[in-house]
């Protein structure tokens, strides 16, 4: 919200306080100043100038060549505005001036061949309004050379203050001034009301009836007769434009002015347009449509609180008025509405209509129920002054059930227990009373206070403690220099995934983080997808069911920028509904699983000047998976399955299984999937379910003594039928060997015509040893020969090298 410092100073005496100190105090009391606009600084270079002569630009139809008197010199200035003319006083930006709109500096420039030494400005260029139809024409009595900060009274400091949702009272100048009064311990001055009222009572002209007392606890009104609707005077227009509001006419401007002064939203109706001169506040029973004053047709759900006249709706209560009762230039008699509406009713309406106005913003946060009449009177006084209208005698104030001020207790020791320091009682009393609290009871231990009606956020002791703490300054709360540490059990639930990340990076992988919100098509590839009720776009309408699509997107994007060799991993959650679930009603209806994915594509990055390039292949992803499992001690725990067929993602793939369930899957991503991501290279990936990995019981690690006895190695190679696969052979050798055979390692594989058609050669190294003794040559030789025999017979294989 924009707050004018000059306006604030009408309510608190801060004449001798530097503005930096005011801003700092506001920041430190919870009214965060997000931005400040110093008019003196912004407009310091602009001056009043006199257009001495205007000629047509010789080379351009729409430009004028003006001779401008700046009070010091005569300058040639080119102007494009249609309304510029000889004899005008204008706002002039000399060379070097920074123009607020567009943030550019005026330089000497040739325009269509003629030099221009400055600029004559329009309202919007100065950000004093949005008019760009022509230049600003100033009062002829101003002297050329006068700075416009002086001529136009542009000497304000405008603060952009972020008001948190708990502080509706601060959505006005008086509200902000009240905090300043407490901060500087000075008095708050509320404008006094002096009404000149006519003899005729308001009851002769209008009546108000509340049907829905729950949603409209109070409705106050004033009536003015014989008004002249016209433009507001300069001082009022400037007050509004300074805080970013657009002046409309002297009636509407006053309602806005009072709202920004007191926080009470007001609405003015053209009284002559109200049927039966009557206001009825009620909620709709059925859906209705209504034309608001911005000329938009609104669909109102049943239960919307409306302001009606004797026969029809004339405003959406607390949100926006209707076109049918709007103030126009011919309006003569008006009714000023100053009401208090139920916060949640206004919020519901504003949400349903997706329409948030200055009024609804305040009503839904809670305005001062005790302040309606004051604001109505203050508005009527001003309107009467500005419009010449007559204020009807008295007010209408329908307030069936008075909202009483709440009471709260404050125990001094509780305050110390929360804040960790003691604030002197006198200081506490001073802060509370400056904020408008009334202390009704006090003793050594505690006080009871009456809470001001403009503070709906305050009900409890803790709320009072916060008020005292923030006004006394958080900087006065001590900062302890030692803390107690509990010696109980420390838990680190992130340790497991931290370890996985360390392993993945040690294998050369880079971590990526992808958005779990995906398109329907992507999310539908695996599992039972979960839609988002209110997505931003179709691209982000579903929760991911797998990490693969995100990974492929990253691969594709990187290839597009020329990065083709990639080792990537991600750890993240995937989501799916249970098969039986239709609507998620509790946490058992869906699965949120943590997964890790490894992605490999392109060339092995370790290529150098002395090595050949090598492309990653299926065996690389296999080896990464094996190394990963070794590091988490699961290398001999899981079973493998291999598939040479079509999966949703893969054409060649394998799984890692534990007690018959798949806990990891991966392989070569199939072409049709890659095509969807515009990837022309082979991509290999593997995804593990981390929750499943975590659950596998691990044997505690024990030290193994290094072998004391020599190992004996034997190699053999066989020619097999090409249909025989490695796993069959290696498993058979292992199974056939005695316990002295400790490992079987494939060291060569080739297919060649010399072997015969459909034949291949596999060569293995066998490792024999015992942890208890040195093996003798004969026993190894015997077993080796036996294995040669078994393999030959089992696979109809032929021993090579003989």
């Amino acid at each position, binding site marked *: 919200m924009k707050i004018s410092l000059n306006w604030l100073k009408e309510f608190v005496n801060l004449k001798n306080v530097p503005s930096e100190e005011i801003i700092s105090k506001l920041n430190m009391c919870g009214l965060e100043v997000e931005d400040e606009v110093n008019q003196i600084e912004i407009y310091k270079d602009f001056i009043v100038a006199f257009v001495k002569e205007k000629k047509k630009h010789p080379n351009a139809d729409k430009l004028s060549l003006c001779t401008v008197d700046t009070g010091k010199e005569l300058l040639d200035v080119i102007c494009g505005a249609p309304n510029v003319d000889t004899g005008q006083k204008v706002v002039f930006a000399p060379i070097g001036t920074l123009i607020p709109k567009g943030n550019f500096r005026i330089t000497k420039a040739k325009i269509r061949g003629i030099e221009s030494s400055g600029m004559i400005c329009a309202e919007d260029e100065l950000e004093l309004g949005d008019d760009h139809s022509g230049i600003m024409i100033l009062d002829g009595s101003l002297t050329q050379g006068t700075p416009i900060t002086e001529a136009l009274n542009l000497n304000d400091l405008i603060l952009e203050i972020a008001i948190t949702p708990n502080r509706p009272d601060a959505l006005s100048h008086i509200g902000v001034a009240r905090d300043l009064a407490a901060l500087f311990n000075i008095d708050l001055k509320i404008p006094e009301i002096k009404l000149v009222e006519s003899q005729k009572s308001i009851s002769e002209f209008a009546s108000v009836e509340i049907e829905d007392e729950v949603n409209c606890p109070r409705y106050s009104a004033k009536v003015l007769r014989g008004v002249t609707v016209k433009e507001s005077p300069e001082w009022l227009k400037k007050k509004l434009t300074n805080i970013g509001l657009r002046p409309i006419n002297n009636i509407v401007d006053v309602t806005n002015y009072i709202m920004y002064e007191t926080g009470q939203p007001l609405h003015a109706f053209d009284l002559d347009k109200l049927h039966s001169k009557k206001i009825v506040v009620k909620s709709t029973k059925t859906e209705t449509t209504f034309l608001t004053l911005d000329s938009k047709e609104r669909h109102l759900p049943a239960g919307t609180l409306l302001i009606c006249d004797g026969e029809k709706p004339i405003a959406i209560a607390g949100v926006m008025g209707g076109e049918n009762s709007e103030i126009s230039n011919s309006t003569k008699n008006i009714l000023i509405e100053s009401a208090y509406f139920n916060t949640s009713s206004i919020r519901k309406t504003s949400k349903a209509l997706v329409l948030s106005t200055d009024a609804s913003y305040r009503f839904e946060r809670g305005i001062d129920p005790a302040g309606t009449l004051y604001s109505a009177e203050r508005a009527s006084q001003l309107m009467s002054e500005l419009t010449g209208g007559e204020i009807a005698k008295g007010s209408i104030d329908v307030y069936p059930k008075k909202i009483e001020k709440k009471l709260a207790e404050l125990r001094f020791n509780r305050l110390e227990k929360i804040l960790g320091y003691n604030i002197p009682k006198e200081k506490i009393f001073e802060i509370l009373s400056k904020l408008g609290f009334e202390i009704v009871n006090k003793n050594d231990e505690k006080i009871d206070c009456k809470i001001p009606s403009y503070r709906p956020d305050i009900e409890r002791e803790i709320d009072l403690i916060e008020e005292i703490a923030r006004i006394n300054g958080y900087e006065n709360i001590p900062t302890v220099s030692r803390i107690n540490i509990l010696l109980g059990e420390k838990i680190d639930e992130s340790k497991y995934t931290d370890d996985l990340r360390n392993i993945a990076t040690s294998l050369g992988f880079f971590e990526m983080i992808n958005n779990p919100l995906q398109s329907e098509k992507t999310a539908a590839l695996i599992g039972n997808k979960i839609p988002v*009720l209110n997505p931003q776009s179709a691209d982000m309408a579903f929760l991911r069911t797998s990490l693969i699509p995100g990974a492929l997107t990253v691969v594709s994007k990187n290839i597009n920028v020329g990065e083709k060799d990639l080792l990537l991993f991600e750890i993240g959650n995937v989501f799916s509904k249970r098969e039986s679930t239709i609507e998620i009603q509790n946490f058992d209806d869906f699965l949120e699983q943590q997964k890790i994915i490894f992605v490999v594509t392109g060339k092995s990055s370790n290529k150098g000047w002395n090595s050949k390039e090598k492309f990653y292949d299926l065996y690389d992803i296999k080896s990464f998976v094996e190394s990963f499992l070794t590091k988490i001690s699961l290398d001999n725990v899981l079973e493998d399955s291999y598939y040479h067929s079509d999966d949703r993602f893969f054409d060649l793939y394998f799984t890692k299984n534990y007690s018959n369930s798949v806990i990891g899957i991966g392989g070569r991503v199939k072409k049709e999937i890659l095509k969807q991501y515009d990837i022309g290279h082979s991509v290999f990936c593997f995804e593990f379910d981390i929750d499943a990995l975590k659950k596998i019981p691990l044997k505690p690690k024990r030290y193994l003594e290094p072998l004391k006895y020599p190992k004996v190695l034997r190699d053999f190679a066989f020619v097999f039928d090409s249909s025989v696969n490695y796993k069959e052979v290696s498993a058979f050798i292992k199974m056939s060997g005695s316990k002295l055979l400790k490992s079987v390692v494939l060291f060569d594989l080739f297919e060649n015509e010399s072997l015969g058609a459909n034949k291949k050669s596999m060569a293995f190294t066998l490792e024999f040893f015992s942890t208890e003794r040195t093996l003798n040559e004969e026993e190894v030789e015997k077993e080796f020969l036996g294995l040669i025999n078994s393999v030959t017979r089992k696979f109809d294989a032929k021993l090579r090298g003989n």
Partner: protein
Amino acid sequence: MLSERIQIIRSEFDSDISKVSDLKDLENVRIKYLSRNGEISTLFEDLKTATKEEKPLVGKSLNELRNYATTQFNLLKENLETASPSTDEKIDITLPGITKILGSKHLLTQTLDEIKSIFKGLGFSILEGPELESDYNNFEALNFPSDHPARDMQDTFFINKEFLLRTHTSPVQIRVMSSHKPPVRAIMPGRVYRNEAVSSRSYCMFHQVEGLYVDSGVTFAELKGTLVSFAQQFYGEGLNYRFRPSFFPFTEPSAEMDITCYLCHGKGCKVCKQTGWLEILGCGMVDPNVFGFVNYDSEKYTGYAFGMGIERTAMLKYGISDIRVFFENDIRFLKQF
């Protein structure tokens, strides 16, 4: 017969090996005597034809021969290899080494790791919670009434009326307090979602670290001390800080913590929007209403909570001006850190 041949081959071997002058000669000796079809192997083959009485004795001397030859061969091989510095070795030692690329954790993970290690040192546990949360845990129990404007502070992705993507890590507070009696001291890192238009300043998901400490005697002064210690360890000693009043429904009193902008050292720059200060986290004393939801006695226990955005922290620390960089996963970015 066979033993004679063993003697002959042994002396032939001795003679041949004495003539060896380089590795190439040596290899010829190996092929002649020690290969699969070499002299010694042939002798083993012939052993099969020996008589039963002959076998043990001959076998033994044959084994001795093989061991002798192997040992001699190995000895000589070793001598030749070490003694002869290869004169034809032309190494350009200035050639570049072969690059070995190490992987790395995402910058956000690295930032989080640093935060975690600081809080571990301050006695905090590390706990996690789900991203798909209930409205109750995410809002209701954190003192966001269902039709309160405070809900507007966090634009939410809903799954349905009861479930949503968590908008902050604070629901983990509710989970922790509902399942543990005080004292509780933990940080709770995780991913959160906001239905905000994607721009350089905001993304529809990001990461937070939540902190919570509840015990008897926990005060705002201790909150300040703990967070100042964190900030000094994370951002460096000697920084200036301030706590400003703010509003979060689940803490009261609430505060935001600012530190001196370390780019301009408080003079005012673009990053700190000319204020000289950078907001780094939100915090406050746990609201008694929250204790009510988790059945903690708010007269007996007090506590503080805090939360910070990891992206924001990393952006400030590493000078990143566009949050989307974190989620594009451009390998050129990933490799930088």
